[in-house]
């Protein structure tokens, strides 16, 4: 046993705990690996710490994950780039563990180290490592190898490059679907490093293999490769090789593949260019919008705006809009809901006339949808359409929709619409709001569900902010104060809460003249819960009102409450009094 000097004690503990049996302590030590390395010095880190870690790879996954992460930034601690290769063995071990997240992190760290390594070292150490992993006995190693080719390839010699491409193509045909999935996932990255000549031949043939795989999960990932490969190919090659694949995928037997295409199609448009988009991708997209499977239609409907932005308005009106009309009365509520959440974005694309003529009827029918989510999604994006055609055309249909949502029997629906009220108010303007919605806002303050009352209180505050104190003086304050006499104490509490929120917005004068007298009156309530809430509200008013008012009105009221028979009331009253003292002291 070595004798340790006092200042070294903590670092010694840290090192010992690399092998502690409490996983938290081991984790802690691994996270401080850089400190340990600096204490040991570069040479001993290379010769002792790293080999020690290589042997230590049957630890718990959490520890291995932390180790994989730390090693990725370890180059400075082993003596810089010229010694970076010593970090490869422990990470190679981590590349073949069973837990996916550990492997992914090890691959990420290897890529980070590999991209710093000198060319000669890559040849001597990194490429052999990739080849070893790719030939690994267990699928886990082979899965990891797929993510390393794009680092290894650029520095390889001509013959080695041929070999690497051959190995990758074998990985694309591996027995294990997991390996093929990894090969499909990383194909785009690898393709980016491959010379154009080989890209057209080798990589495209691997891609073709993957697109025809038996496993749906592999083909799904091949869909993502389409866009990635398309970016590296010349447009004419893209049209010749990628486009037919996309069109095939869009008619794949598996709905999950079509779903992926529906999600990705707009990205593929860029790769193939406008001409091919018009002739091939628009028909494919239209087919997806009319797919038999609701999930596919949901994905396609959700991308309708993004897709239309790429197209010219004429094409959009001619081909996409008819489908949108059909989707607005789709049998699946989720399709309609997905459509409603994006359709407002089409207004700027189509322009005013087409919007009024074509989109408006669709908005209106979606606003009358039986499914609340659909209506809410339309309302939430109202500002987009307002910019194009103004709200007037919609307002007539809007009101019944809002009223219905406001009275929906599901409180979550009511909550959602309350949250949009300030947005609606700003879009609709004071006049419309006063006539139609003001009463609703007051009604929510007396909702049966607390969350709604709470949201309603916040809502009146936001309205006061939106339209200004003067408007609030007329349209909010009287109505709110009126309700303080409600026979039910829970509603009185809501009003207290609303008052405390309104006070900062309304300012000192209104608070003193209108709000404070009401609160002081409420301090005589018979329910203790009201009384201690009064105490809380009074405390919150202290910074808002002037000092004489505090002394003349708030303090006496709190003093009275501090002698209340109820312990909670006394507690909060005393808190309030203390707060006053503090304000006095500081001023």
């Amino acid at each position, binding site marked *: *046993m*070595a004798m*340790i*000097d006092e200042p*070294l*004690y*903590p*670092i*010694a*503990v*840290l*090192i*010992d*705990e*690399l*092998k*502690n*049996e*409490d996983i938290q*302590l081991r984790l*802690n030590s691994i996270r*401080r690996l*850089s*400190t340990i390395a*600096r*204490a*040991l*010095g*570069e*040479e*001993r880190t290379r010769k*002792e710490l790293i080999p020690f870690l290589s*042997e*230590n790879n*049957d*630890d718990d996954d959490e520890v291995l994950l932390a180790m994989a992460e730390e090693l990725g930034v370890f180059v400075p601690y082993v003596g810089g780039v010229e010694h970076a290769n010593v970090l490869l063995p422990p990470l190679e071990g981590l590349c*073949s*563990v*069973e*837990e*996916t997240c550990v492997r992914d992190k090890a691959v990420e760290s290897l890529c980070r180290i590999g991209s710093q390594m000198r060319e000669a070292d890559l040849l001597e150490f990194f490429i052999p490592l990739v080849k070893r992993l790719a030939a690994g006995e*267990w*699928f*886990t190693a082979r899965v990891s190898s797929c993510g390393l080719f794009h680092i290894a390839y650029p520095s390889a010699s001509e013959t080695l490059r041929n070999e690497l491409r051959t190995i990758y193509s074998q990985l694309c045909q591996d027995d*294990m*679907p*997991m390996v093929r*999935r990894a090969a499909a996932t990383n194909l785009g990255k690898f393709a980016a490093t491959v010379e154009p000549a080989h890209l057209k031949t080798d990589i495209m043939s691997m891609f073709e293999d993957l697109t025809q795989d*038996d*496993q*749906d*999960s592999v083909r799904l990932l091949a869909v993502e490769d389409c866009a990635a490969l398309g970016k590296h190919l010349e447009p004419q090659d893209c049209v010749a090789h990628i486009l037919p694949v996309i069109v095939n995928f869009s008619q794949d*037997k*598996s*709905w*999950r593949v079509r779903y992926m295409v529906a999600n990705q199609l707009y990205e593929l448009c860029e790769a193939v260019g406008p001409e091919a988009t018009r002739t091939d991708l628009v028909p494919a997209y239209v087919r997806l919008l009319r797919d*038999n*499977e*609701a*999930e596919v239609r949901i994905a396609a409907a959700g991308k309708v705006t993004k897709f239309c932005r790429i197209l010219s308005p004429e094409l959009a009106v001619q081909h996409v809009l008819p489908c949108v009309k059909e989707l607005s009365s789709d049998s699946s509520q989720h399709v309609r809901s997905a459509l409603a959440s994006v359709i407002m974005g089409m207004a700027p694309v189509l322009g005013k006339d087409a919007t009024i003529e074509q989109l408006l009827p669709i908005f209106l029918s979606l606003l009358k949808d039986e499914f609340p989510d659909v209506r809410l999604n339309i309302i939430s994006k109202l500002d987009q359409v307002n910019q194009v055609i103004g709200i007037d055309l919609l307002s007539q249909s809007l009101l019944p929709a809002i009223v219905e949502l406001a009275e929906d029997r599901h409180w979550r629906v009511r909550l959602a619409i309350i949250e949009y009220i300030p947005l609606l108010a700003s879009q609709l303007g004071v006049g419309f709001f006063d006539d139609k919605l003001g009463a609703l806002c007051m009604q929510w303050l007396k909702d049966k569900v607390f969350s709604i009352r709470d949201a309603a209180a916040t809502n009146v505050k936001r309205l006061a902010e939106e339209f200004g104190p003067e408007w609030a003086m007329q349209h909010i304050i009287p109505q709110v104060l009126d309700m303080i006499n409600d026979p039910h104490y829970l509603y009185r509490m809501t009003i207290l809460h609303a008052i405390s929120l309104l006070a900062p917005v309304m300012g000192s004068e209104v608070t003193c003249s209108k709000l404070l007298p009401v609160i002081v009156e409420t301090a005589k309530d018979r329910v203790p819960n009201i009384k201690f809430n009064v105490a809380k509200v009074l405390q919150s008013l202290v910074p808002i009102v002037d000092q004489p008012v505090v002394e003349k009105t708030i303090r006496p009221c709190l003093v009275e409450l501090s002698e209340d028979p109820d312990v909670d009331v006394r507690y909060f009253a005393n808190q309030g009094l203390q707060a006053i003292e503090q304000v006095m002291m500081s001023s």
Partner: protein
Amino acid sequence: MNGGDGGEVTAAPPAGPPPPLEWKFSQVFGERTAGEEVQEVDIISAIEFDKTGDHLATGDRGGRVVLFERTDMKEHGGSRRDLERMDYPASRHPEFRYKTEFQSHEPEFDYLKSLEIEEKINKIRWCQTANGALFLLSTNDKTIKFWKVQEKKVKKISEMNIDPSKVVGNGSASSSTVSSSPKPCLANGAYPDRSYSCLNNDMTFPPGGIPSLRLPVVTSTETSLVARCRRVYAHAHDYHINSISNNSDGETFISADDLRINLWNLEISNQSFNIVDVKPANMEDLTEVITSAEFHPTHCNMLAYSSSKGSIRLIDLRQSALCDSHSKLFEEQEAPGSRSFFTEIIASISDIKFAKDGRYILSRDYMTLKLWDINMDSGPVATFQVHEYLRPKLCDLYENDSIFDKFECCLSGDGLRVATGSYSNLFRVFGCATGSTEAATLEASKNPMRRQVQTPSRPSRSLSSSITRVVRRGAESPGVDANGNSFDFTTKLLHLAWHPVENSVACAAANSLYMYYA
């Protein structure tokens, strides 16, 4: 055409059926001594070989999973592939030894529904092996768990910077990462706040490092098997889970309960997708429940599920997200006039299994085993009577609830034979190759042939010619029942599994695991 004497003689196929197997006793685990009472918790409730046949897992009513490993191949050096090419001496047969066991499920209580949740293991399925670690899924009525069983080095730490004996006083410097005793090196971590507070990154070290510090030296002496629960897939089933099955893609699996089938990703435990839902809007309209479900062995998009009405549905996951409409339905039309009170009860399918190549599905209902060709939905290609002598006793079996027993079934790796269990700890093996008449009855005991009665029946089925002419055979002559055997309804052989590559069967008789080979 029962009994084999009415069967049409078809031209024997050129190759001829494989000769009947001669079954021999191989091993028994957990054998009962005479008079020993069986503990309820020890009763085996699930058996499953892994894909290679090198491992066998059993689950019991006490929530434990026991693993066995094959021993007869490991004596040779070299890879498995070399071994497979070697000629075996005729006496070689799979032998297993106990490997490890772990507590997979514990009894629970659902407070919302006031329901006890038994710890009994309903099904075990093996997953892809990686790095020498074994992975398996086990499920009870409600919760599926993903287990990893791995050899871990027991670590002894022989050298440390700080002598723990001086600090703690109990002198235990050795620690193993697998034991769960409280930290023996307490002093090292005793004041973490104090010790780490001065360990910020500004701390400077001499350029050459500090020579007096050393890394702990680990000496690995032995290894031990550790089972760790990697994931728990819970709260997705309102009814009791009857099946789990892995997909050939290696990343998803299904779980089926009475009314629904859910699809999971092995890596994601907090989300599953409902792919089949047979729950009617009004539970009073319920006429049929799901009894078993299995993925196709190679086609990732196909799965089959059986129902209590005796039908098997094949569904295609590619068709739609919610597969309420099947792509194929297999059911046998009942013969007119044969209907009785028990018809519907005994039609209920208790288990289905795909053959290895995925072309055939084997199903077990109360009285028969049926083999279906997935390309032929007009009826089964073969029907085997398991215990026809019980037909007159259905009334008794109904009264003591035995009629609701759920027998499992299995196919041999080559698809030439099928097996299933019966009462009195008997199980039956039938040849299903064209022209085969093999029908053996074996007893789960050290002398399996004791009760065996070979019923010679003529070749009854030819796939090439009259495929629709299905002949029932294998029914025992009534003499069997009359020869003094009283059938014991309490000793039933529900669970059995066929080795994936060898002619070897593992079956459970109460708490004992019997293994046979041929």
